């Protein structure tokens, strides 16, 4: 079997890729995709721990299902916000949405 650590390394790499993408990308949709990456990396972690440490239980799988659902809901909400934002500012560049400051 592939050692657990390999899978954890993959999920961490995905996590940090997502975080990087969140901080570094300008397009709001791309940022949304990075958030998805982060969420999915957590998913991989859950499945891996479930399969390797507690094979006879299904708790990890339940969590994963939850996360998938919630991710979907959150993405729809986020897209609604982005659409409104576009209607107001005519851009989906995150650098142009700096009005809520001092």
């Amino acid at each position: 079997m592939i050692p657990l650590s390999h899978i954890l390394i993959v999920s961490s790499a995905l996590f940090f890729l997502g975080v990087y993408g969140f901080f570094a990308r300008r397009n709001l949709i791309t940022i949304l995709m990075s958030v998805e990456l982060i969420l999915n990396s957590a998913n991989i972690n859950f499945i891996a721990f479930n399969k390797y440490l507690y094979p006879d239980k299904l708790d990890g799988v339940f969590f994963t299902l939850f996360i998938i659902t919630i991710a979907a809901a959150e993405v729809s909400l986020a897209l609604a916000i982005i659409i409104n934002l576009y209607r107001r500012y005519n851009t989906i560049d995150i650098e142009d949405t700096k009005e809520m400051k001092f």
Partner: protein
Amino acid sequence: MDSYGISSLALVLLPLLSFIILAVAGKHFSPKISALIGTSSIVISALLAFYIAGGYFFEFGNISGAFTKQIIMQFNWLQFTNDLSINLGIVLDPLSVMMLVVITTISAMVHIYSINYMQGEEYFERYYSYLSLFTFSMLGLVVSVNIFQMYIFWELVGASSFLLIGFYFTKPSAIAAAKKAFIVTRFADLGFLIGILMLSAGAKSLDFFTIIERLTTPGSAYLANFSGSFIGMSALSWTLLLVFIGGAGKSAMFPFHIWLPDAMEGPTPVSALIHAATMVVAGVFLVGRLFPVFAISAPDALMIIGYTGAFTALFAAIIACTQTDIKRVLAYSTISQIAYMMFALGVAGWGADKSEGFTASMFHLFTHAFFKALLFLGAGAIIHAVGSNELKNMGGLRKSLPITHITFLIACLAISSIPPFAGFFSKEAILSSAMHSNPMIYYVGLFTGGLTAFYMFRLYFRIFWFKKPEVHAHNHEVHTWFMNVPLILLAIGSVVAGLIPFGHFVSANGEPLELSIHLGSVVLPVLVALTGIATAYLYFARESFRPEQSVARFRLFYNWAINKFYIDEIYLFITKKVLFNLIGRPIAWVDKEIINGAINGTARLSMKTSEMIKPVQSGRTQTYAMFFMGGALVLAAILIFKFV
């Protein structure tokens, strides 16, 4: 309370009543009514004063051979601590009864005189209300039983004087003079206050007679409270010296004399009342009141008083010789004569053979009131007639002002101590007591007597002689009988007052004292006075080259004297340069720049800090997310290291 008690209460309170009526409702009365209210109240007080004096000196005052104090009434006004309280009361003893007579009489004369003199003035009723206030304050001062009570009336006298000097309040010079008078005497009063505090702490009482009793019994525990010494003088002497400083301020002793000449800005009757006969003798009265303590327990303080008095007498007399404003001459003369009273106290001691100075001082106070008030009122009549204060505008007035002329002459003779006028007897007594205890002061007094005669007769000859009277001169005095009557009455007083056997009534310990006149010791002062008169005649009775010649010969000294030895300039220097520039300005600067600056600086610091922190809220989502992530990482690290 018997009739004398009620009379004394009425005597003191009538002027107060008059003040209140005139101050509150005076505007609505006609000038005649105001004058009537003011004058009648004081005339009644004067009659009461004579009544009380008759009763005291001839009936109830003399108890087993000595005149003792009779406390008429007293009540507790303000209790500070268990020992110390301000009591208000009235005491009759030789000193206070004599002062009551003097104050009410002179005040009555001034009230009557002012009916003509101040006629037509704006604020006429206010003038009479201030005069009543002053009379009340002065009366309250002399009957005080408690040293703080005297301080209260002392301050009130100062305030009335301020209001009266500044009566012509639209004139800048009057305003400045009033301020100067108040501030200089206030500064002296500070000494008085500290002296009171020290006295009361040591003697544990504020009552005059208790203080005197406790501090004059040798070996008393209270005297031990003053046992410390400082530069060779005991603490008690310093305390009494501080009290004397208060007296020196009101009585215009050097260096506090500077306010009195300027106070001549007030109306002339005011000068007669306040700055000749009554307020300025308050300092002498104060030393007289505490005389037993001075004489028995603090003789070195008394010595300082003697020297200060002698110096001031000479100093003021020299300046008086050079002044050209009639009222200034009289002002410096007053300073000089009061200094006589002061040094008479200074050379006196305790005990029948040494206390002549006390009686002499009080005697001179009594006689001086008459002739000095007369001089001022006469000067007022002259100024009224001529329209100016300056000597150069006067001359040959003996035909146009006959009554003024004769009365003025009587007053000059009295002040120059020519027998048998009043001043002779009192000044003789002073000089003889000085001769017995301090010959140097005696010679100063003698010489000053000569100067006195000189400058007074300089005035007399310059005003009434010097020129031929004008052919068409008409008698000014027929229009002003209210002015003439006081002049005549005061002149009579100046003649007969000296003949009263004063020592019989007023002495340091109450027992009668014989003031004898030794023919041998009398000759010299009279001769000196006659010399002064003769010199004045030679210089001033006619146009003469002599004044200019003398001035030229003593040019430097003359300049110093006519500029009053520059003391006023020193006073101005101290107030402007020292008080304002050296102390006031830096304090205002410190307040504005440093303290306020600190507060404003704190505000600026907060603003700057705020400006520095503000950029954290940049509005950039990704920055916020980075902080969030950083926080989460820190938390994770902590959790890992805590639990793993």
